[in-house]
């Protein structure tokens, strides 16, 4: 080996490596796209919303009981939309949370590996179905089904939408909860079994509490997704703002309002146009708070077990 020529080696680089810096710059630029998206969302919502609130007082908006932006005289109380969102979300979570958690407990604590390996993907199939399909199902099947079993629902109603949305959200709850429960170390379970506990006790008193951050995170995420979901309610819940808590009636949610108005030929800059952004901002803030909370919860459970 010619180590003689390396006796006085030149450790300086033969040429400056500019390429490395250029590449790092390009990659950082890619990362900035996501920053630009968030900034864009905030700007897109904030400015028109602020203009809106110059014409309509925030108090009237948040406490008004009638939503009629296109009538004369126009009224801009968001409560009917909020009620629509909350009612649908309530029924969705009534389905998604208990059944999603139940499915997760079964998959994590009861199912044999082989059963689990085909049940989990099947649940994922449910998660992959586009929301427009669920909307169709709610309108054309579930509404009829509810009537057949004696519940007098309007053609468009919050109940069908809520129930179907609940099933749609089950995989969200199930998947995240199951991840959290599977991450709980075996030793905790073994210790309980060794003391003579049955599976019911181990699951509910040991595993679920240990995985609680992840489980609660899944609930919060499900609520957030229910609040933000558009197609199911647009198709099946109706476009009649209705301040009520009776889910058998038609109700309009915040998302349905945005969807219905946004595609119409609403003149840019008009007050009706700006309502999109005011309601959108409300929606965004609600889901943002929930998402950040859920992210923190997930981080906490990951820190404990990983």
């Amino acid at each position: 080996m010619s180590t003689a020529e390396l006796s006085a080696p030149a450790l300086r680089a033969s040429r400056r490596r500019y390429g490395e810096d250029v590449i790092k710059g390009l990659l950082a630029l890619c990362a900035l796209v996501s920053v630009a998206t968030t900034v864009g969302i905030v700007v897109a919502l904030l400015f028109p919303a602020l203009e809106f609130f110059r014409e309509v007082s925030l108090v009237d908006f948040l406490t008004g009981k009638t939503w009629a932006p296109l009538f004369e005289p126009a009224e801009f109380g968001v409560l009917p939309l909020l009620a629509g969102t909350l009612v649908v979300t309530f029924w969705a979570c009534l389905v998604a949370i208990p059944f999603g958690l139940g499915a997760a407990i079964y998959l994590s604590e009861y199912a044999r590996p082989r059963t689990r390996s085909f049940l989990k993907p099947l649940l994922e199939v449910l998660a992959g179905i586009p929301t427009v399909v669920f909307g169709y199902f709610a309108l054309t099947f579930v509404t009829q089904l509810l009537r057949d079993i004696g519940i007098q629902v309007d053609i468009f109603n919050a109940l069908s939408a809520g129930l179907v949305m609940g099933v749609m959200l089950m995989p969200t709850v199930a998947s995240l909860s199951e991840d959290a429960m599977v991450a709980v170390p075996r030793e905790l379970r073994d210790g309980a079994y060794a003391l003579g506990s049955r599976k019911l006790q181990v699951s509910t008193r040991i595993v679920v509490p240990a995985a609680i951050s992840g489980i609660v995170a899944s609930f919060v995420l499900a609520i957030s997704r229910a609040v933000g979901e558009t197609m199911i309610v647009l198709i099946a819940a109706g476009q009649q703002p209705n301040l009520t808590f009776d889910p058998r009636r038609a109700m309009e949610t915040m998302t349905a309002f945005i969807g219905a108005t946004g595609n119409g030929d609403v003149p840019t800059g008009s007050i009706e146009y700006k309502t999109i952004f005011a309601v959108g901002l409300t929606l965004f803030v609600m889901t943002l708070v929930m998402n950040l909370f859920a992210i923190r919860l997930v981080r906490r459970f990951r820190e404990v077990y990983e």
Partner: protein
Amino acid sequence: MKGRSRDVRGAIFRLALLVSLAVAFVTLGALLVDVAGKGFEFLDPFFFTHPPSTDPHQAGARPAILATLYIGVLLLLFTVPVGVGTAIYLEEYADKNRWYNRLLEVNIQNLAAVPSIVYGILGLAFIVRGLGLGRVVLAGALILTLLVLPTVIIAAREAIRAVPDSIRQAAFALGATRWQVIARQVLPAAIPGIATGSILALSRGIGETAPLIMIGALTYVAFDPSLLGPFTVLPVQIYNWTSQPQEDFVKLAATGIIVLLGMLLTLNAFAIWLRNRYERRW
């Protein structure tokens, strides 16, 4: 000590859990059966080759299907470079102790959970009216890119993270620069995971309806779409038909759903096949 009592409570609990699973699967089954039953009538080549019409017996979904395919291709072209680039930056270059990098991570996680209609608002404000692109295929593709990007980033990060550090160490020790290590060792090993994640993200993007409605994809489109022309996509076409009262349009909607689900099933099956065939077990 008493003799072993029947674990009634345990059995009831187990049953309740099975019922939970059943709710999901029975609903899925009912949905598929209903769609298949109603959609079967209009499912024929005519559906693929003809544009929609006010007469349901003369209606097809050709423009919608074509636009969906175009947008799918554009989606891949846009999201994969940017998403993988972001993932590489976060995993291989960014100092995790710096506040701005941590903020970047939280930002991406949050964007993944923002309601899709908000992306529609973003698109309406900036791309359609702001950039002046108008209600065109390209605008739709751009908005869906932004919506799907966080998913691609997260999947790419996982694939890159799965490459063992010992490979990087060996490459560095031989005198490779950071980019050489990434391009020649890390990325090739991560490609199966990245491909799978991208395809799954793509299938999510194709099924999206709300953002595209917001940018005007609801127009009655009876001609083949072009990059800078008005358009509709299959999910929106389904929505369109579902909203019409006549029974026949409901059936058409079901037919559209069969085609859409067929596309998604193919994509997902392909992604799973990719993963099983090429994924490395470290």
